């Protein structure tokens, strides 16, 4: 239990998707103009990461990694399908996003219309695929660990986008130099937030 909690906290603060690996920057920059939409998108990302990482973990464990097919037949012990992981992971993610889109449309039309184009774009949000690929690279030992990593990364991304959205709402009243307005200042603020998040690096978990 303690270990799961450690993975969760670590993936929120120390290995933050946005500040440590720059994943999901495109939607992070595009949707962070107001806090409301960014909360919606952040929640959607938590949800999708929380589903896709465990599903991809099972996929990796039972089909893709070297020798994973042994449960079918001992003959397959030296079959290594890991080169297929990109295409299978992205297929799982695309279908999960489609599913989430349908659920959101049915149960929360308001959220659906405010997310607009960005919901389908979660499919190509690098944070989602990145979550699965990091899960594969770091070789988590159990489904529970993979799940807590997925949820933690989602929460980290949520924190980052809500933080930047709040700052951007306020910065509209500041006198930013012309050429730096919009994108430029957002980059620099993100860099400063990243420096702040680096203070978590020393934490031993």
């Amino acid at each position: 239990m303690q270990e799961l909690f450690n993975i969760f906290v670590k993936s929120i603060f120390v290995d933050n998707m946005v500040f440590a690996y720059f994943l999901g920057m495109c939607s992070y920059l595009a949707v962070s103009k107001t806090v409301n939409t960014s909360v919606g998108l952040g929640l959607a990302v938590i949800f999708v990461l929380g589903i896709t990482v465990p599903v991809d973990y099972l996929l990796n464990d039972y089909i893709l990694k070297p020798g994973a097919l042994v449960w079918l037949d001992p003959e397959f012990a030296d079959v290594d399908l890991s080169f297929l992981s990109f295409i299978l992971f992205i297929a799982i993610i695309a279908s999960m996003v489609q599913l989430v889109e349908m659920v959101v449309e049915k149960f929360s039309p308001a959220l659906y219309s405010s997310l607009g184009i960005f919901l389908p774009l979660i499919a190509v949000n690098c944070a989602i695929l990145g979550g699965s690929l990091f899960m594969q690279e770091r070789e988590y030992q159990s489904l529970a660990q993979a799940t807590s990593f997925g949820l933690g990364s989602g929460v980290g991304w949520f924190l980052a986008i809500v933080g930047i959205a709040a700052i951007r709402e306020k910065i509209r009243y500041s006198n930013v130099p012309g050429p730096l307005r919009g994108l430029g200042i957002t980059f620099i603020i993100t860099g400063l937030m990243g420096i702040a998040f680096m203070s978590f690096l020393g934490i031993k978990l």
Partner: protein
Amino acid sequence: MSTDKQEREPLFSAKNRKLLTNPLNIDNPITVQVLGICSALAVTAKIKPAFVMALSVIVVTTFANLIISVMRNGIPPRIRIIVQLVVIASLVILVDQVLKAFVYDVSKQLSVFVGLIITNCIIMGRLEAFAMGNKPWPSILDGVGNGLGYGIILIIVGFVRELFGSGTIWGYHVIPEAFYDFGYKNNGFMILPPMALIIVGIIIWIQRSRNPELIEEN
């Protein structure tokens, strides 16, 4: 325009040259279209991985644009995203295997970011915005141009970070020993992730002060 006229259009007409050169500056995928930021920042601590990454992205954008442009009339609009993803993912698998075979150490350094080319918005974005509606040859040029525009930013950021962060360029020491004797220190801060963001921010700043039409409202 009649097809006849299209065929007689020279391969590098003014319009086609624009496709190639616009993304390098006023239509740069990273600083203006805001596409493909993620990988641009993560692999630029050194020039070598940045260069390999830029090359991989150029290859993938070019061929993905070509393939989708050839198939564009046969793709049902409803499932086009899945078709595009499959094409991109197959190309990325090829690139990944080639990198693993020939430059294994760089491929290890890039780690998950090669796979993340799949979700690099430059590729998706160009497919949607250009290749779905244009002939193969302009699409190839558009792919090469955007790949190059992406690569240029990567190399600039990589150059600055490696020069000031490690005192090397492409792994060779360029800052003379004498400097270190005078107390010059490598700025370890440059290697850390947040500096990449700040450098890109500064690049955007410089670019926009030279092209005032790019300045945003708010």
